[in-house]
């Protein structure tokens, strides 16, 4: 079977308001006409390049040099999820080259690299492989066909006798060969073909555990992260930020700061007071000399008050986002004989290991930026709008990212560097402290879930009511993303107007934010009477996408409550789920695979207990079985078995690594992490009070990849959602106590 070649994007096709999955279910307002323009170069441009440099440059990703070097421009950032490895593999498969010879360069912000679904250049939503799967294989195949055609022309032989293999074209009957590098000029003259892609059975690269391309530079210290960027004449700055959310500088006294060695300036700027020095530590040390008086701000932010408000919101009906059957009727008929549980989850910080930072140089009407960002397209547009520059006068380079987890989908750090560079008329890097990062994030929101269910006499759920109270993530982020989606040249006033409208859609509660209900509104359990409701909470805390987004909390509620129902029905939690997943074969597939690999139902050593959960997110299916013990109120997770169905696998080792990573990320949150507010300030500041899972707490993780011939889907995030409920369910099995509040405090366990 031949996989149909994806159509090359047609410039004339409009894409209207398309609801798609940003970070798992955001609404991408993609009405853009132009983002695909220029992905495939015109013949006269290809010819001009070939004449000038001898290079064959057929599309936005690929340049083949006369010396046989193959340079691939990676348009999705590398933050650990493996794009520097998986994406060259996709190109290599169809280009017929050894993927390890491909040189990978990181793309600058450029509309040609817009995300094909979101309509702007970002890396997120566990979508990089899913959305590049067709695009990059096609790009590789086009180049390969042009090289074959070129060889056939040069040799004056039929195209069918020319075989592309390992970076050369071979004329099979005569055995003549020519390297790709020797054919670049002729290839540039060929028409752009519509090639057929290889059937999966012929893949030799896709599906192999190729070593990570980025590993060498990460074991010898040579990889360049944002914090490592050095430029001629670069100054370094620290921004003194408000202790209370949104407070402003009333006044400041520079004290002796300016007389300290290396200190160049102390300036007020939006967001605080910047201390600028030759070197970072000179700036950091001088902060002690500066006194800032703050005014205003959200001094009333308080986690206790927010918890009360969430309780009040879940006590009343919310906006219905899914309604099957007659939930109210069944609940009324049950006359009080129903189960009810509420689940509370805290604010969470992303806390990537590399603190936020950015380098910027504004010169005249141009700006150049180096940033570890998931959102170069957003950074470019926001900087252009802020400084009043033309979009194409702002160059945004991305570096390696020391973790992202959704935090770097917002480009605030890049904007402030650009702003400061303009203020001081010099190239400057702003480096955040860990405390800055912990206290000035866009957090995973605090959320409350209230669930009710009715079991029939056989113990089968016949009604399910799920009420969620949560802030809108899209209200915060869509307005900032929208201007980066509009065609180049769209007037600023129109962009601002669109942003206002987009924000208002969610502020006015016209649309229930799908990122708050994803994973709940699409629950796969077959329950005839089912309703999911959302109440919008707006406490004024900055919120954003946190690895697995809405699924990070909905999976905890759904998979905990289904477990409670199993216990109430006197049924085995695995068998109970299996019976309700008869219409969800892939959910069922991973559930069974995880249970089998974990030995579900088999005896365990004394004191060990199991818990199970399954969840669908980012188009992938994941189930996990946890083995843990509870001793002296201390939860010790010994083993996690994880089954994943993510469609066809590009690189199985990266899939395993991402499952391991998601599990550790989710375990840390479940067992330890909470951001709380008091008097308007964040109470946590560093890794001593926002703790990470460490080596001594690391369970053994075993990953089972369920074979699939479906197109590939996400792996960066889907490992996160099932782990917290699997742990809570195992604790319930161990102690009889149900965990309904995260993180799992020792007092909740015993």
């Amino acid at each position, binding site marked *: 079977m031949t996989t149909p070649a994806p159509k090359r994007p047609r410039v004339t096709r409009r894409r209207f308001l398309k609801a798609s999955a940003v970070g798992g279910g955001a609404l991408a307002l993609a009405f853009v006409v132009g983002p695909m323009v220029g992905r495939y170069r015109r013949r006269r441009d290809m010819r001009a390049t070939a004449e000038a440099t001898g290079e064959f440059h057929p599309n936005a990703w690929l340049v083949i040099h006369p010396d046989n070097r193959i340079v691939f421009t990676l348009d999705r950032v590398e*933050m*650990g*999820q*493996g794009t520097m490895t998986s994406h060259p593999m996709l190109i290599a498969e169809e280009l017929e080259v050894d993927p390890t010879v491909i040189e990978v360069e990181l793309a600058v912000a450029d509309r040609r690299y817009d995300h094909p679904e979101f309509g702007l250049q970002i890396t997120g939503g566990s979508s990089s492989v899913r959305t590049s799967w067709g695009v990059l294989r096609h790009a590789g195949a086009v180049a390969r066909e042009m090289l074959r055609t070129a060889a056939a022309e040069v040799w004056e032989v039929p195209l069918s006798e020319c075989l592309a293999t390992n970076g050369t074209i071979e004329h099979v009957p005569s055995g003549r060969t020519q390297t790709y590098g020797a054919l670049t000029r002729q290839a540039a003259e060929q028409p752009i073909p519509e090639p057929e892609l290889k059937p999966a059975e012929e893949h030799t690269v896709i599906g192999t555990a190729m*070593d*990570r391309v*980025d*590993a*060498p*530079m*990460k*074991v*010898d*210290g*040579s*990889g*360049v*992260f944002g*914090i*490592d960027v*050095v430029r001629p004449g670069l100054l*370094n700055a620290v921004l003194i930020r408000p202790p209370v959310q949104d407070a402003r500088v009333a006044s400041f006294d520079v004290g002796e700061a300016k007389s300290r*060695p*290396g200190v160049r300036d102390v300036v007020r700027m939006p967001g605080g007071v910047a201390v600028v020095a030759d*070197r*970072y*530590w*000179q700036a950091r*040390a001088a902060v002690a000399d500066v006194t800032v008086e703050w005014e205003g701000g959200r001094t009333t932010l308080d986690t206790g008050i927010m918890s009360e408000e969430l309780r009040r919101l879940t006590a009343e009906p919310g906006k219905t986002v899914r309604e099957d059957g007659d939930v109210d009727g069944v609940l009324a008929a049950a006359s009080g004989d129903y189960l009810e549980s509420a689940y509370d989850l805290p604010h969470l910080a992303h*806390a*990537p*290991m*590399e*603190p936020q930072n950015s380098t910027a140089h504004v010169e005249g009407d141009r700006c150049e930026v180096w940033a570890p960002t998931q959102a170069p397209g957003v950074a470019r547009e926001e900087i252009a709008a802020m400084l009043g520059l033309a979009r194409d006068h702002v160059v945004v380079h991305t570096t*390696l*990212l*020391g*973790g*992202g*987890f959704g935090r770097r989908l917002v480009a605030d750090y890049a904007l402030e560097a650009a702003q400061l560079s303009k203020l001081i008329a010099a190239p400057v890097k702003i*480096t955040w*402290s*860990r405390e800055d990062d912990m206290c000035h994030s866009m957090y995973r929101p605090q959320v409350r879930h209230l669930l009710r269910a009715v079991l029939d006499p056989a113990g089968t759920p016949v009604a399910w009511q799920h009420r969620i109270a949560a802030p809108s993530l899209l209200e915060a982020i869509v307005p900032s993303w929208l201007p980066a989606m509009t065609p180049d040249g769209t007037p600023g006033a129109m962009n601002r107007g669109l942003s206002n409208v987009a924000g208002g859609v969610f502020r006015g509660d016209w649309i229930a934010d799908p990122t708050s209900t994803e994973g709940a509104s699409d629950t796969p359990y077959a329950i005839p009477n089912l309703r999911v409701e959302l109440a919008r909470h707006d406490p004024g805390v900055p919120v954003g996408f946190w690895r697995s987004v809405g699924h990070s909390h909905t999976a905890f509620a759904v998979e905990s409550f289904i477990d409670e129902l199993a216990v109430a029905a006197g049924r085995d939690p695995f068998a109970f789920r299996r019976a309700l997943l008869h219409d969800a074969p892939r959910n069922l597939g991973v559930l069974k695979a995880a249970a089998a690999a974990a030995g579900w139902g088999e005896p365990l050593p004394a004191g060990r207990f199991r818990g199970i959960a399954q969840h669908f997110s980012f188009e992938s299916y994941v189930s996990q079985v946890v083995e843990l013990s509870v001793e002296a109120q201390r939860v010790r997770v010994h083993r996690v078995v994880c089954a994943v169905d993510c469609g066809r696998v590009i690189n199985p*080792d990266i899939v395993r*690594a991402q499952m*391991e*990573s998601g599990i*550790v*990320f989710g375990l840390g949150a479940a067992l330890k992490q909470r951001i709380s507010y008091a008097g308007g300030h964040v109470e946590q500041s*560093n*890794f*001593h009070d926002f703790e*990470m*899972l*460490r*080596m*001594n707490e*690391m369970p*053994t*993780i075993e990953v089972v990849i369920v074979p699939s011939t479906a197109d590939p889907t996400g792996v960066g995030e889907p490992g996160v959602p099932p782990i917290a409920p699997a742990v809570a369910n195992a604790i319930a099995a161990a102690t009889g106590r149900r965990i309904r509040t995260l993180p799992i405090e020792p007092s909740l366990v015993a």
Partner: protein
Amino acid sequence: MATTFRLNDQPITLEDDAGGETPLLWAIREIAGLTGTKFGCGRSLCGACTVHLDGRAIRSCVTPLRSVRGRSVHTVESLSPDRSHPLQRAWLAENVPQCGYCQSGQLMSAAALLARNASPTDAEIDIAMTGNICRCGTYQRIRRAIHRAAADLREGRS
């Protein structure tokens, strides 16, 4: 103030104009220009800045430059000129790094462990490595890589 010490086996004098109070981390990164050692927390909580001081793993973010006078400091750049250190080879074989930001510190903690213990147990790895946070959760692979490197060293494949 000028502080003279050995950095990666070369004598070096760094002028820090803060009376020697500049953390070794920032002296290495900004004055000596070696950026493999990373800043993560500034409070000895995460281990991203781990270097060796006279062969012992220390957190350079809380170590004043003056305190290393006359002593020997090694950073990740010194492990090998060509990624051939047994730990680097093991890290590559196990595909340990994800984002990679913490890995310089992880490698230096592991190198200090192997230098004094050629056959570390899991419990000994826990003790040596628990000060190093990896937000990407590569701990299982780090553990495997340390065992692999230790086996290579014992079997003379170094």
